[in-house]
């Protein structure tokens, strides 16, 4: 080391070199492979991912697949179909049968945004879009409930049908809340879970209320 004592490197000389590890051998192949595959494969892959997440919602286990690869296709499809099914009321000016399409859409998306902001402010570790993804996918049980309600209303709209609809909607509301809590509550500090669950409860309660009070004209 003695010989190196008088070696000085001027600060003006930049040192060049590459410190990247060559991992590039895989990525160009992948790019080409997804570019060359038929469109059907691309669509099927996305559809399978969405379908897998639907199954995760219906049987909520503690898996992180929903969180890891978030996407917003599922929530969009669910939101649009729920809003369309809630549209049945006639456009008569005297009787406003149901909420407008835009109303349902805005409620769902703004509600999800507010809940996400709230959970981030309470110290959650989940990111913005992951939370939106989970909340959107957990609207699935309520969409199923809406479908069932519409079918029951086709049969009649008396007391019995109301009781059936009430039971179905309450059950699906509980399922939605439990499913989304199972995914979201883990990202919170343990003693604040109740603070995060309450707005989720309110959110699904409002949606369930819109479904229950829907009467086709």
């Amino acid at each position, binding site marked *: 080391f003695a010989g190196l004592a008088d070696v000085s490197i001027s*600060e003006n000389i930049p040192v060049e070199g590459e410190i990247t590890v060559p991992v590039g051998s895989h990525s160009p192949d992948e790019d080409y492979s997804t570019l060359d595959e038929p469109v059907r494969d691309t669509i099927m892959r996305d559809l399978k991912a969405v379908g897998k997440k639907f199954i995760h919602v219906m049987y909520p286990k503690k898996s992180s697949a929903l969180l890891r690869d978030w996407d917003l296709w599922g929530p969009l499809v669910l939101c649009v179909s729920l809003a369309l099914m809630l549209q049945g009321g006639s456009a008569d000016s005297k009787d406003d049968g149901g*909420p407008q399409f835009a*109303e349902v859409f805005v409620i769902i998306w703004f509600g999800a945004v507010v809940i996400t902001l709230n959970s981030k*402010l309470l110290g959650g570790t989940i*990111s913005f879009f992951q939370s939106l993804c989970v909340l959107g996918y957990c609207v699935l049980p309520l969409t199923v409930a809406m479908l069932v309600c519409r079918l029951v209303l086709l049969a009649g709209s008396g007391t019995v049908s109301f*009781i059936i609809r009430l039971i179905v909607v309450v059950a699906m509301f509980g399922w939605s809340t439990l499913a989304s809590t199972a995914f979201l509550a883990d990202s919170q500090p343990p003693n604040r879970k109740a*603070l995060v669950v*309450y707005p989720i409860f309110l959110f699904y309660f409002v949606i369930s209320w819109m479904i229950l*009070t829907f009467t086709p004209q």
Partner: protein
Amino acid sequence: AAAGGGRSGTAAEWGGLEDNMQGGGSAVIDMENMDDTSGSSFEDMGEMHQRMKEEEEEEEGEAGAAEEEDGEFLGMKGLRGQLGRQVADQGGKRQASKAFSLYANIDILRPYFDVEPVQVRARLLESMIPVKMINFPQKIAGELYGPLMLVFTLVAILLHGMKTSDTIIREGTLMGTAIGTCFGYWLGVSSFIYFLAYLCNAQITMVQMLSLLGYGLFGHCITLFVTYNIHFHSLFYIFWLGVGGLSTLRMVAVLVSRTVGHTQRLILCGTLAALHMLFLLYLHFAYHKVVEGILDTLEGPNMPPFQRVARDIPVVSNAVLNTTAKAIALTL
């Protein structure tokens, strides 16, 4: 919270080398990396890299000779490189500052959401108990979680009430009306009372006022929840005076304890009490009145007033309750 603490001073404090490991001047990127321990999605990473690349392009354009190759490789450039990056970061920050301001806003609000469920429950119960000691300034917790949740609960209850009374909104939507009413009251009246408090030299900050009024809505929530389900005017008046009165008394007592001078106390507390009680009255009657008007046109003006109750969609339980109420009212 740690990320929040580090973010606020980034504009001025560029001393540490540890901030530069991403090669970016933006705190947004650091925060994304630190918070997303569960793994960012592909799109998040892509967006991040795009932003970093844009920043580096800006840096290279503005710093000129100081940055010739990869800006991340700091090691041998020493202090001169450091200074060059500092100059560049002032300019490159503009790009990311737009996105940064979103996170900065969240961080400003973060301390107001630092509560435990036990505390929220305690404060809810306290909001119905008027304090006795008005000669000593009472403590108000500056917290926004409870008030925000109470406003949303009030919106949900209002929606329920509007649906069961068949309220017809011609311009706008049911949800829009409910949200506008509740948030407008909370924010508007808080600001107005804060302004009056400023004129009357009361010791209260804006956040404390928002918190106080927000918790005062707890009484409103209870009253409306009960009276939207049991449509009986006398019951509503009892709840209005009892529950509404208690929560108003609490708010008034806290404000009185923080104000000096009789005239000032009178102005401030009189205004708050009047607005709070009148709001409850408005919420109850605004939605029943519409139904009464419609019943009038449909069934003619010959109906005696006791039978003008709200029309219900879920007929089972409410029909029983209403016939009982009608029977009692007619016999009184």
